[in-house]
């Protein structure tokens, strides 16, 4: 499902400008949305789902303009959304919560809904806990329930705000496999701090800095931003005056620098290097 954002700006009360003229076009596939805290990722996702109206600019999902009530509601039926911090109603069971959210999405057929909810609970490994109150769920179980609700109605666009936060390593691996499966036949926008998630699950990446879109392209192209600027420096050597340390270990440091540091050995850049290099050159 195609996404078109043109000139999208969002200013909050007090003059805080979370998005500044963002242009983003996505036809299909899984897009990893990256950026530092406060870069505007969550705001962009909220605007994309119609939960928040932009101050200026146009957003269309599947050709439906979110500025109109009918267009927004039609698009929202085909959008699955997992907010960053989701605290589902603790007084409901997992199954009831999914049923409630399915009804809010306009899924009226009771028999279909029951089967669909059971299928989603199974997909996130919560079948045995579906009848338990959410108050008794662990953080990881709540996250998985949130992922399940985002899949209600088999949406053409999936908007996931830090979906792997709070998941243990095994759950994270399982989610990545689910994401790879989901990304085959729909558009997925995935906001994350974890570059591994992007490297493993996304075909393209978008980077926000200070509310502006500073990169949108293939994941490999983001790594390439640091080509010729990534070095490994021995632990006893200085990293260089104008370099950014990407990773440090007792053996040495991996740095992104405009010029080769003393005793620096050029290495092939990773996605992390590319991301650091991009933010370093455009700190927003």
């Amino acid at each position, binding site marked *: 499902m195609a996404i078109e954002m043109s000139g999208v700006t969002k200013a909050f009360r007090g003059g805080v400008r979370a998005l500044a003229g963002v242009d983003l076009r996505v036809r299909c596939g899984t897009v990893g949305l990256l950026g530092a805290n406060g870069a505007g990722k969550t705001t962009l996702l909220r605007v994309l789902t119609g939960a928040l109206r932009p101050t200026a600019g146009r957003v269309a999902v599947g050709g439906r303009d979110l500025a109109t009530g009918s267009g927004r509601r039609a698009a929202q039926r085909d959008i699955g959304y997992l907010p960053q911090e989701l605290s589902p109603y603790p007084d409901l069971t997992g199954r009831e919560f999914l049923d409630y*959210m399915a009804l809010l999405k306009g899924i009226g057929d009771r028999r279909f809904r029951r089967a669909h909810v059971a299928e989603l609970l199974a997909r996130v490994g919560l079948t045995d806990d579906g009848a338990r109150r959410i108050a008794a769920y662990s953080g990881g179980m709540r996250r998985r329930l949130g992922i399940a609700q985002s899949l209600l109605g088999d949406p053409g666009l999936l908007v996931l705000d830090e979906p792997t936060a709070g998941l243990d390593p095994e759950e994270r691996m399982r989610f990545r496999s689910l994401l790879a499966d989901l990304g085959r036949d729909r558009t997925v926008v995935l906001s994350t701090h974890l570059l591994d998630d992007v490297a493993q699950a996304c075909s393209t990446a978008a980077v926000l800095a200070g509310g502006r879109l500073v990169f949108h392209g293939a994941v490999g192209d983001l790594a390439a931003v640091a080509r010729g600027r990534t070095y490994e420096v021995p632990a006893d050597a200085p990293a260089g005056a104008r370099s950014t340390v990407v990773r440090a270990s007792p053996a040495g440091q991996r740095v992104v620098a405009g010029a080769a540091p003393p005793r620096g050995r050029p290495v092939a850049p990773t996605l992390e290097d590319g991301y650091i290099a991009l933010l370093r050159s455009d700190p927003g």
Partner: protein
Amino acid sequence: MTLSSLVPGVVGTLRYEARMAIRQRALWYAVVPLALLALAASWHPPAEIADPVRHVGGATLVTGLLCTFGIGVVLADRVARGLGPGMGDLIAAAPCPAWTRLPAVLAASLGVALAVPLLVVLVCAVPAAVADGGARPLAAAAAAFATVLVPGAAALAALACLLGLVLPMALARIATAGIWLWSTIASPQLLPMPTPTGTLLSPVGGYPAAAWFGERSVWADRGLPGLLSPAPGTGTALANLAVLAAFTALFLTLAGLIAARRR
């Protein structure tokens, strides 16, 4: 947008908000003791009931005065809790407009909360039915419940939800209780301050109770002057209900606007 496309969202909201209200222990802790108090105050054996319909009207008035107080205090968090982390955005991203969802949230919670006072009113109508020798007082009890108790409870619950959005929750509950007492029993004859008590603006249900059930009107016959305290009658009772409906709509609209701005 067709009406049928809105039905699942409204049905879901009514069903699950009611279920959550049923599971909210605080609701029962607040309402049941007040309901028992109302029952104790309004219960009379058949031999003591001279006018069965008037008895039912009076019982409804007392039950509403006591129970609505607890209901309003407990339901103050109904809208605010839907704006908790992530849930506000999730609901805003659903194709169910707030103008249909918000009244359903209030109706579901209020419907559950009002089950107890309804039971009290019906129980009080049983000896009246025995005294009357027919089911007329039971029908009068249902009518009194709908016209005397429900409109004021809806207005107070909507106000409580609004206060829950603009004040810290504990303060919103205290303010709700204070406003109910101020607008229902705090007469200018008792307090040196203007109050809606005894006027068409009061949510206690005195005008319908007096006009349609023969109950002695609360304060309205105690010499309060002014345009807003006319003698009870069908016209003034209807005016009182219209005022309460308008207040309910106003409070819900404001709550919806504030909830949208909060996101």
